[in-house]
């Protein structure tokens, strides 16, 4: 269990900036997911932590030691790759023991550690097979096994589940959670899949264009996105957005003149009236207003179509020219058919500065 410190790391390929100053402290035993769209620099960051790529500026600390320029093998870490990167000519047993053979670990010790990891991952029957004789899920297990044999203190994962089908991915997610709970290793996990991020992480670092947008627990990232980008990127179906202006009495007014009372919203600082803002509400928080204000300037939504999701349905709305969505009960609940007034708790909403994208 070792911590990792990423201090002001920058990196560019030629004139193209990839990382623009990343700061991130990962505590021992944490499961931190680096989440972001493809090309945001998250894999580059992981490679820099691993020592597989040089950085332009900044520092990497592992277990409190400066490892900025240390060789990957000296960093007390293991890594699982997207393509698994098993050595094709070696059996599973040789793959697992490769690092130890290179480092001249005594034979008996190699056998013991390979056995214990194989038991942990239930891959004992596969030990004498070659990677080509394994299924995708088995290869994934072996790749994780090779990492665990090397180090149970710090493991890096580079989109390890993206080549698996949906069912296997769900199984492996559970497996990884179990391993993390059992071993207590520090894990850094790169993915563009928000479901993986939400289910696995103790903390999520959302990265966009080489900057960390927010570092928080998955629930906080979902409920209180720090930036408009985070709000948009996390959550499926996507967050409902509405552009407008902030008025003097903590009211929000949309372009068409509809207003929303935000007196229940926890502003980070005293709001400045006249600020152009974007209002965001998760589909889960939208409902049909129980006590419609029946004012002329209330929000008004027109149902467009519904998608059935089994236990409940997703109702798509037309609201002020924006596409919104909300959940409705599939059974028993009334599904609005005509225009209605939607409601939500201002405390559940998010408000962003339109120009900076920062949460207000």
């Amino acid at each position: 269990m070792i911590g990792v410190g990423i201090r002001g790391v920058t990196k560019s390929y030629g004139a193209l900036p990839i990382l623009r100053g990343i700061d991130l402290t990962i505590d021992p035993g944490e499961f931190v997911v680096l989440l972001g769209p493809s090309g945001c620099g998250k894999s580059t960051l992981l490679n820099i932590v691993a020592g597989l790529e040089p950085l332009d500026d900044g520092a990497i600390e592992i277990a409190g030691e400066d490892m900025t320029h240390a060789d990957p093998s000296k960093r007390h870490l293991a890594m699982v790759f997207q393509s698994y990167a098993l050595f094709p000519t070696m059996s599973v047993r040789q793959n697992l023991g490769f690092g130890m053979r290179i480092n001249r670990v005594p034979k008996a010790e190699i056998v013991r550690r390979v056995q214990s990891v194989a038991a942990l991952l239930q891959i004992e029957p596969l030990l004498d097979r070659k990677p080509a004789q394994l299924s995708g899920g088995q290869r994934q297990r072996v790749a994780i096994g090779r990492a665990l044999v090397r180090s149970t203190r710090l493991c890096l994962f580079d989109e390890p589940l993206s080549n698996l089908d949906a069912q296997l991915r769900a199984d492996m997610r559970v497996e990884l959670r179990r391993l993390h709970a059992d071993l207590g290793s520090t894990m850094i996990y790169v993915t563009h899949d928000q479901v993986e991020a939400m289910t696995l992480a103790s903390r999520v670092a959302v990265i966009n264009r080489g900057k960390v947008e927010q570092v928080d627990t998955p629930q906080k990232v979902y409920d209180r996105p720090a930036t408009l980008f985070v709000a948009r990127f996390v959550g499926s179906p996507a967050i409902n957005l509405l552009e407008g202006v902030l008025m003097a009495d903590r009211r929000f007014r949309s372009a068409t003149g509809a207003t929303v009372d935000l007196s229940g919203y926890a502003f980070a600082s005293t709001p400045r009236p006249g600020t152009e803002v974007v209002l965001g509400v998760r589909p889960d928080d939208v409902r049909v207003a129980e006590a419609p204000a029946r004012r002329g300037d209330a929000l008004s939504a027109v149902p467009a179509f519904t998608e059935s999701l089994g236990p409940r349905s997703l109702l798509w709305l037309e609201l002020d020219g924006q596409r919104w969505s909300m959940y409705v009960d599939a059974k028993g609940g009334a599904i609005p058919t005509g225009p209605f007034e939607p409601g939500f708790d201002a405390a559940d909403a998010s408000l962003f500065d339109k120009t900076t994208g920062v949460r207000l």
Partner: protein
Amino acid sequence: MTRTSDRERRRDPARIALYVFLLASAAFFLLPVVVVVLNSLKTMDEIRQGSLLALPASPTFDFWRIAWSSACSGIECRGISPGLFNSIKIAVPAVFLSVLVGALNGYALSQWKRPAADRIMLAITFGLFVPYQCMMYPTIVLARTGGLFGTYPGIVLIHVVYGIPYTTLLFRNFYAGLPDELTKAARIEGASFLQTFGHVMLPLSVNMLVVVGVLQFTGIWNDYFLGFIFAGNENAPMTVQLNNLVNNTRGEVAINVNMAATILTALPTLLVYLLSGRYFVRGIAAGAVKG
């Protein structure tokens, strides 16, 4: 159903024409070989009287034996057998070294992702397109200065050096096609550059090593020019001795012996091709990396 459709396809005129063309091409290229083999089995009288393509009346391997052990070239009458040993002595280490150096070079260049690496590769590739006859004079001067002219290490070194551009190019392209993550995984595991090369990359390149090895072997075995200039009399390879034997001006030109000697000289490369055939089509790395 498939049987009839197979048969129908076989009767397709376009297909028949294709086979005729292929067979005619094969016959065209094999004709000289047939002539050489047939006439190496005939006596001189029979060759003088009959057509070159006539079958031998009573085939005999006597002239193969003469070509092997007692035919005269110049003052020596030991056949071309000493040349066989010389050729093996030259080709084996030269092939081994040029393939190994090419693989190592190729791997290094495939991993080194800098503009400088591309420029070096370009320079190495350039070496492929310069006819080596153009470089003969400076090469001879260099070899003489280094005391290697006309020596055994000299001829091996010359073959290795002239083989490196070719083997490096082939291996670089092969390694550039392998996923980067293999190298990264090995580095994480603590393997050095040479350990990664030796434990991970070389075992992955078995078929490539065989292919490049066979191509190099054929090239070096069939070389006459470099062997003639650099090997010196003592180490003259089979090709040079064959030439001496065929161009021997004394006495009657023994066509049958010459042809037998030609076959004996060409035999090792044919054998190497036949024995290594299966590696040419084998895809060892297939499916090993991704699911």
